C-alpha cells in the first residue's frame, strides 16, 4: 500500500534563500501527522509543495503513490490553508457548491447539507461568508476540505486565530470526521498542546531541516529520561522518607502529597524502590517513568540543535 504522502530529498529555494534543505518524510495512511516548527521554519512551503502550489527545486513528492503534480491527485486531497480562501460575497452553501463543482462531486446537494450539519453551520448555510466569525469560517473551510471526500487532508495551521472555545469545537469536529471517515491528516501547527492531543506521528522542522520524525509516543518515551514517579496510597511516614533520602541510588528528588519523584542512578531498578516502600508498609498504587511533554521534547530538540551549531 502506498504512503499517503511522501517527500524525498525536497529542496526549495525562494528569492535566493534555501527554504527547504532536502527534507524527507513519510505519512502513512490513517496517520494524524503533526508538522511542527516555528514561524518561517518551512512548514507552509512544505504544504504548498504537497498541494502542488509551489514546485520543489529538487526532490520527489508523492501523494498516494502518484506525483503531487498529477491532476488526479488534487481530487484525493482536501486542504485547509492558513487563509481560508472563501468567497466573502457568496453564501456558505454557494462556496461549497463552487468547490463541489470543481471537484466534480456527484449528488453535491446532499453532501453539502450533511457537511454543514457536521460542522454546525446548517442554520447559516444561506448567509454570506463575509458575515461569519473566524471560527465559523474555519469550520466552513473544513467542510470545504471534505466536500469531495478526500483520502488525505492537508491542514495548515487550522486553529490559528480562533479563540479557545472555537479551537475545542473545531478539534472535536475534525477528530469526529477523521475517525468516522478513516482519513489521513497532515497538519502543521505551532500549538504543541493541540498536536499532542490529536497526532500519532510528528515531524519537527527548523530552518528548512527535519530535526526529528517519528511516532509521538516513541519519541516522548525516548526523550523522557530516567525520571520515575511513584504514587502511594498514603503519605509515607517521615522515617520512610528519611530512608529514601539516604538510599543514594534511588535518586529521590521530591515528594508532593502522595507522589514521589526519583532520578534513579544506573543500576537501580524501579522495582528496587517499589520493594523498599512495600517492605516498610507503604502501599504503592502505581509506578511509571515520567513522560516529557511535547513542549519539553520540542524545546530540548531545538536546544540540542542550537548547541550543535
Amino acid at each position, binding site marked *: 500500500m502506498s504512503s499517503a504522502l511522501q517527500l524525498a530529498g525536497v529542496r526549495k529555494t525562494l528569492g535566493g534563500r534555501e527554504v527547504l534543505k532536502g527534507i524527507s518524510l513519510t505519512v502513512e495512511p490513517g496517520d494524524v501527522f503533526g508538522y511542527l516548527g516555528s514561524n518561517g521554519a518551512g512548514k507552509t512551503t512544505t504544504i504548498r509543495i504537497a498541494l502542488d502550489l509551489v514546485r520543489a527545486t529538487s526532490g520527489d513528492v508523492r501523494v498516494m503513490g502518484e506525483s503531487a503534480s498529477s491532476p488526479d491527485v488534487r481530487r484525493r486531497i482536501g486542504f485547509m490553508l492558513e487563509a481560508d480562501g*472563501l468567497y466573502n460575497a457568496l453564501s456558505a452553501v454557494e462556496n461549497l457548491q*463552487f468547490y463541489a463543482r470543481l*471537484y466534480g462531486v456527484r449528488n453535491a446537494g446532499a453532501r453539502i447539507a450533511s457537511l454543514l450539519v457536521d460542522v454546525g453551520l446548517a442554520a447559516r448555510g444561506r448567509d454570506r461568508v463575509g458575515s461569519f466569525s473566524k471560527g465559523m469560517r474555519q469550520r466552513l473551510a473544513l467542510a*470545504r476540505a471534505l466536500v469531495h471526500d478526500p483520502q488525505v487532508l492537508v491542514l495548515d495551521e487550522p486553529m490559528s486565530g480562533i479563540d479557545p472555545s472555537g479551537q475545542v469545537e473545531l478539534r472535536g469536529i475534525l477528530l469526529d470526521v477523521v475517525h468516522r471517515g478513516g482519513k489521513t491528516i497532515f497538519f502543521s501547527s505551532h500549538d504543541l498542546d493541540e498536536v499532542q492531543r490529536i497526532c500519532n506521528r510528528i515531524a519537527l522542522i527548523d530552518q528548512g531541516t527535519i530535526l526529528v520524525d517519528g511516532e509521538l509516543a516513541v519519541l516522548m518515551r525516548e526523550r523522557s529520561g530516567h525520571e520515575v514517579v511513584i504514587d502511594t496510597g498514603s503519605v509515607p511516614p517521615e522515617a520512610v522518607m528519611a530512608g529514601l533520602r539516604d538510599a543514594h541510588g534511588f535518586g529521590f528528588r521530591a515528594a508532593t502529597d502522595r507522589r514521589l519523584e526519583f532520578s534513579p542512578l544506573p543500576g537501580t531498578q524501579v522495582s528496587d524502590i517499589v520493594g523498599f516502600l512495600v517492605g516498610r508498609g507503604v502501599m504503592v498504587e502505581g509506578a511509571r517513568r515520567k513522560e516529557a511533554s511535547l513542549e519539553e521534547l520540542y524545546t530540548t530538540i531545538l536546544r540540542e540543535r542550537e548547541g550543535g551549531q
Partner: protein
Amino acid sequence: MSGLRTLVAASMRSHARLKVAVLLTLGLSVFLIAGLIALVGLLVIVPQARSPKPNTSELARYLGLVVYGSGLLTMGLTLNVFTANNLVKEKNQRLFESVLAAPVGARTLWLARTLAVFLPGLALCEVSAVASLLVVNAFFLTLGLPVLAPASTVVSGLLLVPVLYLPLCGVVLLAGLCGNPVSGNVIANMALSAVLTLVINLVVRAGMDVGSFSFALVHLTVAGGMAAVLIVLQPRLTKERIVLSSGM
C-alpha cells in the same frame, strides 16, 4: 480547462454582489455618457441643426464617436472597478491559493477571471452603445435632423471596443495575478486614458470616421500587440507566481 465555467460563474456572482462597485460602475457610466452626449450635442449637433444645410457626414462621424465612446467608457470603468475592488481584495485574502489547490490550473484561473470581468463589461458596453445611438437619434429627430445609423459606424461602435478590451482584460488580469494586483489597476487606468486620448485625436483632430477601415485597423493593431504581449507573458503564468505574489 476543467472548471472554467464554474470559476467564471462564481466570480461573476461575487462581482454582482458588490453593490457599491456595481452602482459605481453604472452610475459613473451613465454620468459620463450623458456628459459626452451633451458635449457633442452642444458643440456639433445643435450648430448643425441651426445651419441651413446640415452636414450629415459630420453628424454621422460624431454619432460614431458617441456610440464608440459610450461603449469604451462603460467597458473601461467595468475593468477598472472590478480589478480595483476584487482582484486586490481577493489576492490579499489569498483566495486564489485555495482555488489553485483544487483541480484548477493557473491558465484556467486567469482565463476565468478575464472572462468574469470582460463578459459583464461586454454586455454593458453593447447596451450603452445601442442606448446612446438611440438617444442621439432622438435628438436628431427633435431638432429636425435625419435619423442616422450607418452600418459601418454601428458595427464599429459595437465591435471595436470589445476587440480592444478582451486582450486588455487578459493583460490586466495576468499582471494582477502574477504580480502586484495594483499593477493591473495601473495598466487598466492608463489604458482607458490612452485609448480615450487616441480616439479623441483620431476622430476630432484627424477627422477619422469611427466606421472607417483605418480606425478599425488601428484597433486591430493595438489588440494584436496586446495579444502578442499575452503570448510572450504566458510562461510567467504559474501557480507558484500567483501564490507567492499573494498578500499576508
